[in-house]
C-alpha cells in the first residue's frame, strides 16, 4: 500500500527531473567537463609519454581526482537544486495541496521523493564517472584500482547532500535550501583540506577541524574515500607522507565505522525531514 505510493512518487520525481531543464543543464555541464578532461589528459600523455614514472602517476591520479571532484560538484549542485524545488517548491506553489489530500502519508511522499532523487543522483554519478574512466583509459591507459567502490562512495556523497537538501526544504524556501546545502558542502570540503594540512604538519588541533566537519556532514569524508579508490595504490609509498596536504589525493581508505556513521547520518536526517514535513501547515 505505502510501498506503491513511495514508488509512484519516486517515478514522478524521476519524470520531473527528466522533463525539467535541470537535466539538460546537467548534461551540458557534464559533457563540457568530460571534453575538457579528455583534452587535458591527452596533453598530460604528450608531456610524460606514458605512466612509467611515479611523477606521472601522481599527476594522473591528481588530475583524475580533480575531474571527479568536478563531477561530484555537478552531481551535488544538480541534486541539491532538484531536492529544494521538489518539496519546498510544491508546497509554495500549491501543487502539494491536491497530492497530500489523497489518502497517503506525508512520510511516504517524502520517502518517494528521496528515492527518486537517489536514483537520479546515483544514475548520473555512474554514467558520468564511467565516461570519465574510459577517457582516462584511452588517453593515458590508466584504470583506477577500485572503480565500483569509488563510484559508490561518490554516489553516497550525492545522497548525503540531497538528503540534507530535503531536510532544508521542509523548513526554508526552494532556492535557499539549494544554496545552503551547496554552501555547507563547500565549507566541509574546505574544512577537510584544512584538516589535511593539519595532518601533514602534525598539528592536532588543525587536523581536528577536518575530522569534526567530516562527522557533521559526511560529504567530504566520503569524497576522500572515493579519491582513495580512484588513485594508484602505490602512490603513498612513492611520494611519502607529504601528500596529506594535497586536496586531491587521499592517504587512507574509509573505515567501516565511518561508512556506518554516514549511513546512520542519512537515516537520521531523513527521519528529521519526515518529522518536520509532518508538522508543516500547508
Amino acid at each position, binding site marked *: 500500500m505505502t510501498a506503491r505510493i513511495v514508488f509512484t512518487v519516486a517515478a514522478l520525481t524521476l*519524470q520531473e527531473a527528466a522533463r525539467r531543464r535541470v537535466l539538460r543543464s546537467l548534461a551540458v555541464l557534464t559533457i563540457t567537463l568530460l571534453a575538457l578532461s579528455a583534452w587535458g589528459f591527452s596533453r598530460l600523455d604528450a608531456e610524460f609519454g606514458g605512466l612509467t614514472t611515479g611523477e606521472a602517476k601522481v599527476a594522473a591520479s591528481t588530475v583524475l581526482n580533480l575531474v571527479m571532484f568536478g563531477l561530484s560538484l555537478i552531481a551535488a549542485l544538480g541534486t541539491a537544486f532538484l531536492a529544494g524545488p521538489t518539496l519546498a517548491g510544491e508546497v509554495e506553489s500549491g501543487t502539494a*495541496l*491536491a497530492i497530500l*489530500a489523497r489518502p497517503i502519508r506525508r512520510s511516504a511522499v517524502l520517502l518517494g521523493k528521496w528515492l527518486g532523487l537517489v536514483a537520479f543522483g546515483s544514475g548520473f554519478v555512474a554514467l558520468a564517472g564511467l565516461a570519465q574512466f574510459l577517457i582516462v583509459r584511452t588517453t593515458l591507459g590508466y584504470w583506477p584500482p577500485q572503480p565500483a567502490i569509488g563510484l559508490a562512495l561518490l554516489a553516497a556523497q550525492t545522497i548525503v547532500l540531497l538528503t540534507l537538501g530535503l531536510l532544508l526544504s521542509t523548513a526554508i524556501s526552494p532556492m535557499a535550501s539549494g544554496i545552503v546545502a551547496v554552501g555547507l558542502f563547500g565549507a566541509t570540503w574546505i574544512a577537510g583540506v584544512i584538516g589535511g594540512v593539519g595532518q601533514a604538519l602534525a598539528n592536532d588541533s588543525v587536523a581536528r577541524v577536518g575530522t569534526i566537519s567530516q562527522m557533521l556532514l559526511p560529504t567530504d569524508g566520503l569524497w576522500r574515500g572515493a579519491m582513495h579508490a580512484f588513485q594508484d595504490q602505490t602512490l603513498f609509498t612513492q611520494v611519502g607522507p607529504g601528500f596529506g596536504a594535497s586536496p586531491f589525493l587521499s592517504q587512507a581508505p574509509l573505515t567501516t565505522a565511518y561508512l556506518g556513521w554516514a549511513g546512520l547520518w542519512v537515516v537520521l536526517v531523513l527521519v528529521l525531514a519526515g518529522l518536520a514535513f509532518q*508538522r508543516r501547515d500547508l
Partner: protein
Amino acid sequence: MTGPTARLGASASLDVGAEEQPIADLPPSSAVWCSGLRKRYRRQTAVDGVSFTVGRGEVVGLLGPNGAGKTTVIKILLGLVRPDAGEVLLLGRSARDPQARAGVGYLPELFRYQPWLSAAEVLALHVRLAGVTVPAAERRACLALVGLADRAGDRVGGFSKGMQQRLGLAVALVARPDLVILDEPTSALDPLGRADVRDLLLSLKARQVAVLLNSHLIGEVERVCDRVVILDKGRVAASGTLAELLGRRELRLRLDGVDSAAEERLAAAGAFTRDRDSFVVALPADPDATTVPDLVADLVGLGVRVHAVEPARISLEERLLDILRAGPTEERR
C-alpha cells in the same frame, strides 16, 4: 467543549447532539463531522471552535467574508493543516488515519498541478494515489465533463488559469469520491464554466455524493445547497437549512390614509417598518393562507387605500449580510 455549543445559537441545535456523542456512537451517515476545531497562526486566530456536519449525499455551503477561516477549516478537514484542538471524522473514519480521505475529492483554493505532466497524466497520477482503478475511458470522460477533452495530451504548464481550475475539478471527481470538497471552484471560471459547475453540483447531488462548497457566489450556493454554514471571524455565526435561514417572509405594501387604528392592525400581522407610504411587514415563516387577504380586507375596512401588495422572500444574500452586520450578538440570538 463548552464554547461552541453555547455560542452557536438556535440554528446550531442540529449539531449539538453530535458534539456530545462519543465518536463510536456516531451515525455512520455523516460525510463530514467536526467538532471544536481551533487554529491559531501566531497572533491571528483563524478558526475558533468550529463544529458542523455534512450528511451523506448532502450539499452544504460554507459562507463567510474574506478571512473568516473557511479555507483553514477545509484544510484542517483534509489534514493539510494541523488544528490546535478539535476532532474530525471523514466518511465515518477519524481524519488522523490517511485512509479516511480515500473517498474524498478536493479542489484547493490555490489550484496548481505538475506543469510538466499532461492533463491525462495528472488524472492518472491522482487515481494511483487514491488507490483505486479507474479505466482510461472513464478518466477521459471526466476530462470531457469539465470541458478539457481536446487538451488531454497537453502539458498543464501551458494551461490558462481557468483551464487549470477545470482540471482541478476533474482531479476532485476522478477517483469516484463519496465526498467532494470544493474551495471556491468557480473563482477563475467564465460564466459558461460557472453554469457547468452548477450542473455538475446538481448531478453530484442526484448521485448522492456529499459536497462541501465554499463560494462567494451566493446565488450559486442558494441554488444547489441543502444547508449552509456561515463563518465569521473563525466562528460559526449561523447554520441551518436554507428554509430555516430564509424562513422569514415579508409583505411589502404601498398604502395611504394609514391612521393609528390601521397601524395597530398592521402590527398585529407582524413587526413592520414604514418609509412614507411604503410598509414592510415581517410575516412568520409559515403564514396562514388567510393572513394576507384578511389583512388587506381589514385595512380596506379601516379606510386605507391599498396601492400595492407584494409578498417577498428574503434572499440568502440579504440574510448573510444581516447576520454578518449584526456581528457577535447574532450568535446568541
